[in-house]
């Protein structure tokens, strides 16, 4: 049975095993590979997308659970002009290998949507993604810069 949701502004309908995690549906049936697979057990955050505006680890989220929902992936951020977060990410030269960064950026976008002026403690609480390259100090600085860029509009 087809499952319908909105993906990056477009209505999509997929006919897959309803238990298939959203991550794989988006990567494989929709061809959007910006969202990554890191652990498959909701432990690393590489697969973070927005589900109705909430940063969600999609490697364990059955696609049937998002029927009717609005999904946003990294491909929807920007994409023509960089978002404040992407801008800050480039200013601070955050990524190393880059593999974790789609998930990081999606988690930070959601944090700033909810809390436009996060403290360091707020950032620590909200961003629990793993970056094996260890880009954390730049992530922290870039979140503050992004928050400021957003305020300045």
């Amino acid at each position, binding site marked *: 049975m087809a499952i319908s949701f909105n993906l990056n502004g477009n209505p999509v309908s997929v006919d897959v*095993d309803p238990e298939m995690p959203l991550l794989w549906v988006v990567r494989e*049936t929709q061809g959007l590979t910006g969202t990554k697979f890191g652990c498959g057990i909701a432990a690393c955050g590489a697969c973070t997308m927005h589900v109705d505006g909430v940063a969600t680890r999609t490697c364990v989220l059955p696609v049937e659970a998002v029927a009717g929902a609005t999904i946003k992936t990294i491909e929807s951020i920007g994409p023509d002009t960089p978002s404040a977060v992407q801008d800050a990410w*480039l200013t601070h*030269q955050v990524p190393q290998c880059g*593999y974790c960064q789609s998930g990081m950026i999606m988690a930070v976008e959601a944090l700033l949507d909810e809390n436009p002026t996060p403290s360091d403690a707020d950032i*620590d609480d909200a961003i629990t993604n793993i970056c094996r*390259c*260890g880009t954390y100090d*730049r992530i922290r600085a870039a979140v503050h810069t992004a928050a400021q860029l957003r305020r300045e509009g």
Partner: protein
Amino acid sequence: MSDTTETKKRSTLGKWTRRSFLATAGVVGGGLALGLTLSPNRLKMAADGAATGDEVLLNTWVKVTPDNKITVFFPHSEMGQGAGTGLAQMLAEEMEADWDTVSIVQAPVTEEYTNSDLGRGYIVGEGANIPAFMYPMLDFAFFQIAGNLVGQMTGGSTAIRLTGHHGMRRAGAAAKEMLLQAAAADWDVPVASLTARDSMVTHEASGRSATFGALAAQAAEYSPNLKPALKDSAAYRIVGTAKPRLDLPEKVNGTAQFGIDVTVPGMVYAAVALPPIRDARVAAVDDSAALARPGVGQVVNLGDAVAVTADSYWTASRAIEALGITWSGGQTELSSASVRAQHVSDLEGGDLEEMDAEGDVAGALGQGTSLKAEYEVPYLAHATMEPMNCTVSLSGDRADIWVGHQNQLFARNAAAETLGMEPANVTMHPVYLGGGFGRRGDMDFVTLGVRIAQSLDTPVKVIWSRETDMTNDTYRPAILARMEGAVQNGRISAFSNRYIDARSGMPDSERPFDFQYDVPNRDIARVICPSPIPVGTWRAVDFTQMGFFHESFMDELAEAAGADPLQFRIDHSGNPRRRAVLERLGAESGWGETLPEGQAIGVAMVDSFGTVVGQAVHAGVSPDGGVTVHRVVSVVDCGRVINPSAAEAQVTGSVIYGLTSALYGEITLEGGAIRQTNFPDYEMIRLENAPEQSVHFIDSDEAPGGLGEPAVPPVTPALTNALYKLTGNRIRNLPITKSGLHVA
């Protein structure tokens, strides 16, 4: 201005002026393409492998097109170190290029460069006398450092210091000379009257000028000079500046393509089951339940692995779980305890091999204050963020492979050997690496992908689950060391170390076993005890083991001497670079200042891959043993810094990598199986426990050292030295949880 934009096509490469074996230039798309291949004997590389002798190829390519754009082909895999940008900076500097017109491409990238005579011609030139042993490296114009280069993988520790320093700079300078020659001929003026700047050649007297792009085709007529004049570093405008990395825009918007992102028409996905017990074999497979699942394709039994294909990776991975595999045999008796017992018995009864001996250690140990200590470290996994994967498409006698690999050339050869094909028929497609750290220099995930593809008639993308990745790594070895030392009159009079060498693959020429302080009587010897499970290079590998042992024991010796650990190190450092790093560390780290209650600073210094790193860790311990790392200060002498921003990132990332291992890192074996399978049981530092960091580079005009690894080793002993001050307990085994501590 001459009509230099005219495309001078040549039907063959045969008419090229004979140039040095080492340098070639040619016309491509109306522009200049210049290649430089160096084989510097004096680098004294270890030579165990395909190449005989101690030669190494450093291939450098630059292309200038009529639209005045410059493309730098860089021969290294991009796994996060920003090597491509740094290498391009080195080339652009010497070329006097306009940085804004420079782009980078990981070579090889297009058909013409990978599998045609043209590509071959670009590298070696017509009629070049190529030593036979170099053929494997030259075929397909593969732009790689030979894999036997001191046993290292492509990475931050070799890219800048070898390819950049020897290859990129000269290619840039040679290209500039050719462009100047072209303009001089065209305008009938002396070369010396011309200047090159920002991709433009100018004749000041007449006011004439031309872009590099306009001159490029004509410039290609000249022979590249292998020994062009290089700029004085005082005149650098591009090197030494924090140019934004050229690969980052696509790493913030999801478009960067990693191996796992590759899609090949008609491909299926495969998940794999590897033996749960080391070296077990497949006895039987009940695949009825797996094959009954919708979307499942084939089950492939390779004897040492089973794969299932499906129309989605998730479907394949579920089907793997539905397989009834009976495994037999394997090293069921293998455990962490059995490995350790083997180390102990080998240290006590095995063949000792002297690595460094000087003076009379036995005599010196009998005088003054002597001490001994046993240290050990566990196996560690790499846990690259992107799990291993490999995509393979076979058709007839050809193969196409997409795999993030640190040594594309050797990966191609390994695939060709598995397939029984000529390497020339295997095309490797470059992709970004979601982390390497040494893991992506191994061949197992390449050959497994190829073997699975051989059983199928469609292309296949093989993805390892995190669990498969973590339990089938090529680990940083667990080893054991027993050290003895003596201090007399405030100085170390003797040092000895007996250690297990589990054969990580690091060549002895890197000398990780050296005690890096001035001691008159030394005796450092190993017993080789190859690991029963696969091991390999792991970000700074042997230096992480020896660094922990030696730098912790150094603090023990300082205490025995009643000395300040930092001053004690300085007093034993005749080497001026090490000494300067330690002195700067004292100035930058708050050493000797009053710290908040419950905090202490530990220091350590390790010199590896041509780079000296001193680190200070500010740590605290709560009454219940909760450890907080507040701050890490790194002082780095890596010679000339090419890109300060990228360099700083390598250091701060290395600090996290090293600290993660000290705080959490341990892979254990039980009943022949790896116990840790995913992140909760192989935990990582996250934002909330990432320390504040500062990095200080020593101002230096020395040749660049490596930077991908050298900042990993010192941070662990710096931490445990701080913890000793706080708890009075010396940590001689890692991670810290073994000493009753935990991450707060």
